[in-house]
């Protein structure tokens, strides 16, 4: 496990010292983080890094996970999808189950805390049973809730309104709530298996194992095979590029098992890639972090042609590796990429093809943009910044009505 000082060569010693100074102001405040899983998914990934770092900084931190049966997680998945704007049917019985499982979990929690940060909707209802056990309750929403399904949002709004504050990842996800809302952007861990530096030999080994040749420039998209990631659009763009320049396309990701359209999209992708030896489709396990890292480092150009996106951490990961990314102009990708600066935004397969061709013929430009992109990520989207934001938030929450706190 990496310690705080291991980050100094990456972000600068001054950033580490700054974290320590901020944490010293908080002393041994008790912080409880709650979510619904210890492994898998972006939230668990962030907490597994942020919690030890906050502990090293001197806070008294506990990470609690709520437990439930498969039925409960089907309900919370439906709530999750509804918050993202999907039409789903959620019956009163499902909501009863949601409340009941939260009640059962609440019985196990006997801690007392200064701050409780509840991540996403699964454990949100705990506040109904545990309110007196903490001074401050903060709801941390990681989901793109910019256009939630109305009935579910009304249900959740009633729960979340009891919190003292909420935190969203993008301003457009903020909602009408009776308390202050804060913005904490997601981050990646530069020392994790998915992002750490790899030697050329390590990269080569992964490519050999996956059967990817490096005889032509590699275009890569890493994402689930779902319609919002537009893998078919990427194949269309690739075919347009291929008329002019030889290259290879790698589409790597997991199956969207919780997406009813997943199998249909995957079949469409396979059909679109048929008879094309230079397109490789890789189905990767959810924990294939090392493979994703190697693929991103081996790629010449990385594409994330989403038509809907929360923040787009795969874009951040690619930028961190000094790659030029061509991304769909949606969600958090818009915040991360700017034409001729940190990458390219596109709106269509044609646009995507055009930018790929441009970068294939201008490798020096690709290198320059990649370098700028990497510095942009270093400054704004690494885990140390997220830890700093948590510390700042806790300090601010102790005097929530002050806009400027001078210490």
């Amino acid at each position, binding site marked *: 496990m990496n310690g705080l000082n291991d980050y100094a060569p990456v972000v600068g010693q*001054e*950033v580490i*010292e*700054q974290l320590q*100074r*901020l944490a010293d*102001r908080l002393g041994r405040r008790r912080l409880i983080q709650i979510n619904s899983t210890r492994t898998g998914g972006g939230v668990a990934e962030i907490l597994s890094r942020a919690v030890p770092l906050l502990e090293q900084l001197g806070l008294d931190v506990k990470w609690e996970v709520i437990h439930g049966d498969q039925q409960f997680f089907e309900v919370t998945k439906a709530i999750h999808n509804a918050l993202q704007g999907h039409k789903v049917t959620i019956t009163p019985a499902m909501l009863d189950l949601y409340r009941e499982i939260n009640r059962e979990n609440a019985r196990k929690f006997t801690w007392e805390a200064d701050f409780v940060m509840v991540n996403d909707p699964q454990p949100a209802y705990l506040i109904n049973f545990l309110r007196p056990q903490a001074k401050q309750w903060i709801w941390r929403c990681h989901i793109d809730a910019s256009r939630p399904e109305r009935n579910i949002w009304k249900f959740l709004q009633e729960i979340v309104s009891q919190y003292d504050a909420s935190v*969203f990842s*993008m*301003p*457009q*996800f*903020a*909602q*009408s*709530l009776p308390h*202050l*809302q*804060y*913005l*904490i*952007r997601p981050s990646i861990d530069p020392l994790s298996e998915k992002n750490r530096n790899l030697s050329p030999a390590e990269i080569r080994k992964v490519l050999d194992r996956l059967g990817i040749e490096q005889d032509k420039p590699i275009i890569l998209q890493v994402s689930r095979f779902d319609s919002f990631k537009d893998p078919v659009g990427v194949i269309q763009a690739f075919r347009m590029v291929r008329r002019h320049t030889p290259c290879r396309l790698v589409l790597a990701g997991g199956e969207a098992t919780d997406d009813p359209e997943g199998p249909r999209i995957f079949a469409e992708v396979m059909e679109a890639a048929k008879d094309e030896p230079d397109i490789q489709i890789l189905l990767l396990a959810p924990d294939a972090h090392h493979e994703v890292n190697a693929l991103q480092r081996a790629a010449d150009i990385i594409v994330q042609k989403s038509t809907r996106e929360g923040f787009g951490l795969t874009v951040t990961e690619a930028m961190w590796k000094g790659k030029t990314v061509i991304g769909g*102009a*949606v*969600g958090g990708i*818009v*915040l991360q990429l*700017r034409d001729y*600066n*940190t990458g390219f935004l596109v709106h269509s397969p044609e646009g995507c093809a055009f930018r790929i061709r441009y970068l294939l013929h201008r490798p020096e430009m690709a290198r320059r943009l990649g370098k*700028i992109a990497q*510095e*942009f990520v270093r*400054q*704004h989207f690494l885990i140390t910044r997220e830890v*700093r*934001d948590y*510390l*700042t*938030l806790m*300090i*601010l929450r102790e005097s929530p009505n*002050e*806009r*400027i*706190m*001078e*210490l």
Partner: protein
Amino acid sequence: MKINPDQLAENPFWFYECFLMPMPIGKKAQNLRELLQALRELGESVLYYHFFQSRLAIAQPAEEYPNEFALWAANALQDSKLAEKLSSFDPFDYENMAQVRQAVIDILEDYLWDILYVPWARSGFEFQFCEASNVVMRSQICAHTLLEFCEGLRKVGLDAIYYHFFEARWRLGVSKVDDFSFWIETNFGLPKLVAAIRGIDIYFYSLREIRNTLLGLIHQHLGELCERTQ
């Protein structure tokens, strides 16, 4: 004028750190008319965020436009003419946020008066209004001499550069005067160096570049002094 690098300042310079927490207020503008209306109604803290604090919250490297309104006009409304007008708007030309608000309202009203249609942003590109809370904290980094000042400048985070160089120009309320040049002027004189620092056009440099430019200027003026901090 020659200066001894170890000459003590009358008052030491304490570097402050500034931790910003953006706060979305849940309001957005889809078109130029909605932006204008919001600018009339929203609190000054919102204007302050989008003109000043957003630079610390997040800024693309080598950003083409100096404020978020100009950027939105260019990228979301795709209205280059409006983006040009808003880019040459400098909030530092005004004494308080009420004047800044009126001036930017005047620009938008004039612009809307002359055009035949209201520019709209595509869905997903709306202007999202925010404000921010701030923790300002005295760091343990302090300079008694110009030598120590150079060392401190290298050590502090970019937020300190924002606080002392960018926000200070507004906080001190004196045209182009920032904490750094003010301290150098009042403790050591050095009018050429002070003028050069105040001549930095803050809109064309990232915070990191401002730090390097400041070190470069001090180096240029006091060569030997700064070399000792390398």
